[in-house]
């Protein structure tokens, strides 16, 4: 059974110019698995047990881009504060490309070794409510002092992939930007850490889920608008990326995505 968690986003902390797509927090209320769906994004997460606050040191986790779902076994009190990195800003925040941890993550000491500046975030927690603000301040600071902000042409490319809901092929995107498919592939892969075609398919899947669940479209209308050949094609994408049929969507927490 997929259960809803007390996941919520702190909209006022979003800051696209400094690479902050969303800041979120969640404390688990019961024993339940939580299904994490691929969204092409990378997050910086602080994990803690709510029972040990104040005083506990949070465990930092850097999640790489993933292309498939996985279930987290959560116990009551499992707490998370997370920041979703805007696509293209990973390198500015962490100093290495997201492809290095594609389909994986760095946790605790591994994360600290990869980005020593994270040490400033793992001081004993006094108030859980302060963590989202601290995450935002950390990422903003990293981006502002970095020389690795995404170049304008990379932001423009990523903007096109996102604005088109993942519906355009690499060949089309290359033509649109007067670029060779090979250069475009390399730039997008560096920025996102995933093969561009796969990244676009994940965005298409995410949009289709929203069309069905939040925008009230019938599966047939959603498949058409999301750019699938037919409803069966969309159902296959739901099974591949979400491990579910379109009818089971109501059980899943969907995060807010901003390009």
């Amino acid at each position, binding site marked *: 059974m997929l259960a809803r968690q007390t996941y919520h986003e702190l909209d006022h902390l979003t800051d696209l110019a400094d690479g902050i797509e969303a800041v979120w927090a969640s404390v688990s209320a019961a024993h339940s698995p939580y299904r994490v769906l691929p969204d092409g994004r990378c997050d910086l997460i602080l994990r803690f047990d709510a029972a040990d606050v104040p005083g506990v040191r949070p465990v930092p986790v850097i999640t790489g881009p993933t292309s498939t779902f996985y279930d987290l076994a959560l116990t009551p009190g499992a707490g998370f504060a997370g920041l979703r990195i805007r696509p293209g800003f990973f390198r500015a925040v962490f100093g290495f490309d997201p492809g290095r941890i594609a389909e994986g993550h760095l946790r605790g000491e591994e994360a600290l070794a990869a980005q020593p500046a994270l040490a400033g975030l793992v001081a004993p927690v006094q108030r859980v409510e302060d963590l989202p603000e601290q995450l935002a301040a950390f990422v903003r600071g990293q981006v502002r002092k970095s020389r690795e902000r995404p170049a304008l042409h990379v932001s423009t490319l990523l*903007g096109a992939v996102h*604005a*088109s809901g993942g519906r355009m092929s690499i060949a089309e995107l290359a033509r649109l930007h007067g670029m060779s498919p090979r250069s475009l592939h390399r730039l997008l892969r560096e920025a996102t850490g995933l093969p561009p075609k796969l990244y676009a398919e994940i965005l298409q899947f995410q949009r289709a889920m929203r069309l069905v669940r939040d925008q009230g479209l019938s599966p047939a209308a959603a498949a058409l608008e999301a750019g699938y050949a037919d409803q069966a094609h969309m159902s296959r994408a739901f099974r591949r990326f979400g491990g579910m049929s379109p009818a089971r969507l109501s059980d899943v927490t969907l995060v807010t*995505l*901003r*390009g």
Partner: protein
Amino acid sequence: MAVRFGYGILYVPDVAATVAFYQQAFGLSLRFLHESGLYAELETGSVTLAFAGEAMAEMNGVAIRPVRPADLAPGLEIALVAVDPHDAYDRAVKAGSIPIKPVEQKPWGQLVGYVRDCNGFLVELCSSMNG
């Protein structure tokens, strides 16, 4: 009337740069720029010409075909009525618009020229048909 045509909103990669271009190339002035930098309106009279950052598409739950100068122009045009279309055309090209067709007189007497803006949208510069 149930509806009226209120806005034409162009999705663009960079709202601030587009506003600056429209000021320079067409002499239009800014009415409103949202603090997020993702939305702006120009002073264009009863129908508002506005720009939205492409990131807004995903937020609004829509998907669009992005418009780029290197690509074929999308099938629509922004028609700007000028007192002197020849002057307007020269000014637009000088500011970096891509010249498409210099101003000429149509059989019905109207002066019409075409350029493409900094993002690749087709812009018609024409004289008024209402005197």
